[in-house]
């Protein structure tokens, strides 16, 4: 066990998996000598060489396309998209190529690529350095979508992603890169994909969330506890395919659910979560499923704090569910 930040945990996962599996290569912009703009790959270029830690020209479709071709012939590429906001030039390569090779070739071709992308707001980055694009990828058949909220999970989930036979969109909550610190198990301890984490147990209401809003939920839950409300907080960790049993099991117990994420509200992942909860736990529900989300606006610069879901908004939703 060692205490480290979330970005250090990402870094350690990359280094340890590269030691373990010579098929792993990293590619992206500024990831080599510069160690990545967030320093996630710092020192790996020196350690593994420029042939395995590849600084690419500036073209996201080229990066993802190249990663696909590598994976088709046995490498295990991990592509870094500098910010999730810059992933859209590679959208076709991800949605129609990466995600579809297994299906369209009936299993003849597979593309086990991990795409890492710093995601979400909270760093005063404005529209082009703050977006949460997870819903696009959850909606796309053939992808795993993962987002850790702790250093231990970041390391363990990334290790699992690099061993998975299918493509993984690995969204890293950049606001937590250096603010989330915690104990991380030593080498080789992967956290399985598809399993949620019960962050805190409670019997009155379930908050389902992931990424940077996990700590928002924890804060709201701690405040609610002072008023005698026991909030269960679920960190999905793998957004899709999600751990349906953890969520439905919890809601069947509490009878109330709040879904919480930074991404915009309309057709956000929260909409799918709300739909699943009402389909599978309708008779247990004592209140409508509530959503606490970002706004249906472009991500703002000056009004970032207003835009981002906080403990106050989450508590309001919890209170509304309890008094319904």
């Amino acid at each position, binding site marked *: 066990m060692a205490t480290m930040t979330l970005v250090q945990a990402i870094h350690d996962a990359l280094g340890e998996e590269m030691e373990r599996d010579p098929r792993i290569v990293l590619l992206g912009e500024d990831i080599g000598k510069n160690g990545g703009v967030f320093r996630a790959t710092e020192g790996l270029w020196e350690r593994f060489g420029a042939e395995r830690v590849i600084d690419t020209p500036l073209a996201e479709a080229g990066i993802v396309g190249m990663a696909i071709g590598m994976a088709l012939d046995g490498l295990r590429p991990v592509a870094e998209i500098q910010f999730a906001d810059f992933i859209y030039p590679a959208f076709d390569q991800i949605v129609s190529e990466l995600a579809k090779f297994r299906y369209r*070739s009936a299993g003849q071709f597979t593309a086990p690529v991990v795409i890492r992308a710093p995601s979400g707001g909270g760093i005063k980055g404005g529209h082009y350095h703050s977006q949460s694009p997870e819903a696009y990828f959850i909606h796309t058949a053939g992808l*795993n979508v993962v987002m850790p909220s702790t250093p231990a999970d970041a390391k363990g989930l990334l290790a699992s992603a690099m061993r998975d036979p299918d493509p993984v969109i690995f969204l890293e909550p950049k606001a937590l890169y250096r603010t989330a610190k915690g104990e991380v198990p030593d080498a080789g301890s992967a956290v399985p994909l598809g399993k949620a984490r019960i962050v805190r147990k409670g019997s009155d209401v379930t908050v389902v969330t992931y990424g940077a809003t996990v700590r928002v939920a924890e804060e709201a839950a701690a405040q609610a506890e002072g008023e005698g409300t026991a909030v269960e907080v679920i960190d999905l960790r793998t957004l899709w395919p999600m751990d349906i049993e953890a969520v439905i099991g919890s809601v069947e117990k509490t009878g109330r659910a709040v879904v919480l994420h930074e991404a915009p509200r309309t057709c956000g992942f929260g909409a799918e979560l709300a739909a699943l909860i009402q389909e599978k736990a309708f008779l247990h529900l004592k209140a409508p499923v509530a959503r606490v989300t970002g706004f249906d606006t472009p991500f703002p610069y000056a009004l970032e704090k207003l835009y981002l879901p906080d403990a106050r908004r989450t508590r309001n939703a919890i209170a509304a569910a309890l008094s319904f």
Partner: protein
Amino acid sequence: MELPLRVVLREDGSADPELDPGLDDEALRILFRKMALLRALDEKGLNLQRAGRIGFYIGATGQEAAEIGSGFALEEGDWVFPSYRDQGVALLQGYPLSELIGQLFGNSSDVTKGRQMPNHWCDRAARVVSVSSPVATQLPQAVGTAYAAKLRGEKIAVIGYFGDGGSSTGEFHAAMNFAGVFRTPNVFFCSNNRYAISLPVARQTAAASIAAKAAAYGIPGVRVDGNDVLAVFRVTRDALERARAGEGPTLIEALTYRIGSHSTSDDATRYRPAEEVEAWRGKDPIKRFAAHLKQRGLLDDPEEKAVFEEAREEVRRTVAVCEAAPPVPPESLVEDVYAEMPWHLEEQREWTRMPEKR
């Protein structure tokens, strides 16, 4: 800057001794038979679609020299990233005709389970990658596969096919640029058939040629007569050898002409003058090669007829077998999305078994 056009077969049927690749008689006969097979496949594909027996077809009529000449230059171990018109290359690399035709029917004779519309085939064993409809998306992928081979020290080449329309895409640019920077063992083969559906090349580029664009990426560009099977073979072989020797990528532009419509869903009479098509019919690459073979004493009129008849018969026989296969099972709808089926697809698989509950 005008790059020279590489030509081997002269008007009189003779070959330029300077550029003649020196293929032996058997190889020349194979080239001819494969060109005839590709033509026969097109005739049948079009008829099957018109008769409503398959949903769609994309032909390569008029482009047989570019297809077969380049495909014949590939060696075992090389990778092919095709576009939807490159069935001739796939067949040369070992993709079985029965699988290709099975794919047209999309029934259980299709090893890819009817997942895609006709002409979107693949063959992992032959290293022929799955075809996608969006153009040129395969090119940066071809760079990645070439990079993997280079990293492992394998002496293979990776060829990516596309058309004149594809040369306008961002992916073409990314692939050329990445391949140039990483000096990957790639060959980029552009079948410039003069039309991207309805748009002539002048609507794709103001450059003197597509091959000329290679200069901007620091890689060699080659222009070849795409209706000259020996010239196409020669330049492709040279580029592949260059790639395998670690000398980096090459962009080849084969100048040819799409005799048919873009696909069975297109009507080229809307945008092309009949005289233009007729003029190109006179430059038929198969007839041109036949004239050369006859001059060499490797072919005569009855043999030429017999080769076509044999090709048609092979296609006919294969169609009969494939068409008789049963449909794909409904449950296969939810297979192969992931390596292991997740809970939501398990649920949805139940709906394929009990449609009334959907």
